[in-house]
């Protein structure tokens, strides 16, 4: 839930609690407690009304602030997220069409994006900000004199409500309902204690029905406010969970379009086999597509490229393969030197003779992976989970294995001279 929603809710809850409290004090107070001299000539009902009316502006301030925040900020954020979710699929499909049109132009110029500079305004026309950046990153990656650098993608502006309700709001909802239950029970207990026993006299408290009503009434007021607040927050949490599921499905649909069209475009490119230009454009497409995919998508694309034998022709140093899901994948002799595989899931993967020199594998899951003969020189394997990983004949010279879990892993034998161990 976005901070704006939580603040709007808390302001509304404060307003409700103050309304109930001042209402109770205004109408029950004059009956229980004798008003001071200027006001003692008024009837109890008039006095209560005057007190309540004078406290209304104070009570209304947080409520109005919360309502303004909700209607002018939260609803706008939700509308923007909904619009993106509804139209995102069509816009992504038309953007992929544009990339399909751009690729032959790049091929015609031998992969030299600088030659297409006069056409850039045409290609970026009518595109929204993030898609313009994606297209420009693609062109920058093609470069003019060799494989260009992929600029990091701009941080995604997360639309409000795309995150599922955090544990904090769920805990707050439970807490409010718990407070309501406790205050209800305590109010009943206070009434029972004052009406049936004289224990209050021990603490110099006057007993009797008035004390019982005032004491239990104040507890019930708090209970009512907490109960309504807890119910409202519980409803908000469920609404957020439903929205999150719907938005996730919409985003996954867009990612599926990106993956499928990207695969088709790369397949078409590799069929052309135009030498260096094909490799440069293919690399640019691959690297610019990766940030838009989730872990499963990255793993699927990488496995497809490796199975087709296309990875060797692409220089992938610096590729963002964080979180890629490659469970059980056959990546024997794969060339992934210098890539970022932090947090990747490579459980049970086959990495025999894989080239992973200088790779970032921080926090990666390599449990049960077969990495015999793999080149892991200079790899960052900090906090990697490598239980039962087969590293025989692997070259681990210069690798950082700090906090890596190597329980029952088969390590290279330095005495036999096979592989290398980290210094």
């Amino acid at each position, binding site marked *: 839930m976005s901070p704006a929603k939580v603040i709007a809710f808390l302001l509304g809850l404060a307003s409700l609690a103050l309304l109930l409290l001042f209402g109770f004090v205004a109408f029950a107070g004059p009956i229980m407690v004798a008003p001071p001299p200027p006001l003692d000539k008024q009837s109890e009902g008039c006095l209560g009304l005057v007190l309540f009316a004078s406290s209304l502006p104070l009570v209304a301030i947080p409520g109005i602030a919360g309502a303004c925040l909700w209607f002018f900020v939260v609803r706008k954020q939700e509308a923007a997220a909904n619009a993106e979710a509804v139209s995102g699929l069509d816009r992504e499909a038309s953007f992929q069409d544009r990339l399909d049109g751009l690729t032959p132009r790049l091929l015609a110029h031998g992969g030299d994006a600088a030659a297409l500079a006069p056409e850039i305004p045409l290609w970026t026309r009518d595109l929204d900000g993030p898609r313009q950046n994606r297209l420009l990153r693609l062109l920058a990656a093609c470069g003019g004199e060799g494989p260009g650098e992929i600029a990091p993608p701009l941080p995604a502006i997360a639309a409000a409500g795309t995150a599922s309700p955090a544990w904090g709001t769920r805990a707050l909802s439970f807490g409010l309902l*718990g407070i309501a*239950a406790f205050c209800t029970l305590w109010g009943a207990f206070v009434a*029972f204690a004052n009406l049936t*026993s*004289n*224990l209050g006299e021990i603490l110099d408290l006057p007993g009797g029905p008035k004390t019982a009503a005032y004491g239990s009434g104040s507890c019930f007021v708090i209970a009512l406010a907490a109960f309504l607040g807890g119910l409202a927050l519980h409803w908000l949490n469920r609404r957020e969970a439903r929205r999150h599921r719907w938005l996730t499905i919409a985003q996954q649909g867009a990612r599926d379009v990106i993956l499928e069209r990207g695969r088709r475009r790369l397949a078409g490119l590799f069929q052309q086999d135009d030498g260096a230009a094909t490799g440069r454009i293919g690399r640019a497409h691959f690297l610019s597509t990766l940030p838009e995919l989730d872990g499963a998508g990255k793993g699927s694309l990488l496995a497809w490229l490796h199975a087709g034998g296309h990875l060797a022709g692409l220089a992938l140093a610096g590729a963002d393969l964080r979180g890629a899901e490659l469970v059980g994948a056959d990546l024997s002799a794969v060339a992934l030197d210098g890539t970022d595989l932090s947090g990747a899931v490579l459980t049970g993967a086959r990495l025999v003779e894989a080239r992973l020199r200088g790779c970032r594998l921080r926090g990666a899951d390599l449990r049960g992976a077969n990495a015999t003969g793999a080149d892991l020189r200079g790899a960052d394997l900090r906090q990697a989970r490598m239980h039962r990983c087969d590293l025989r004949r692997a070259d681990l010279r210069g690798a950082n294995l700090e906090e890596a879990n190597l329980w029952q892993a088969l390590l290279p034998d330095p005495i036999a001279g096979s592989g290398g161990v980290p210094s």
Partner: protein
Amino acid sequence: MTPASRNLWLEIVAFGLVLISLFLFVVAGYFTAMFMINGLLPNSVPLEIRGVVLGRREALVSALSTSLPGAVLVATAWALRLLLVAEKRCGA
């Protein structure tokens, strides 16, 4: 704070709440037992605090005044447990 350490602290807090509630129940039981045993003694003298004689109702109220918060603490610990279960289900 990572989710794992946060969940661990929540479990520790829930366990602490249960321990405190046990203490409150023991206090409630102790004073109730004291009152009942005093009544069973031959020639028992009524318990009195600051001029207020502690009868059955006072004993009931004093027992409820500690056992009720104890029950609330147990309910809070149970709610924390439900929260952890729901969190685990969402994470899974």
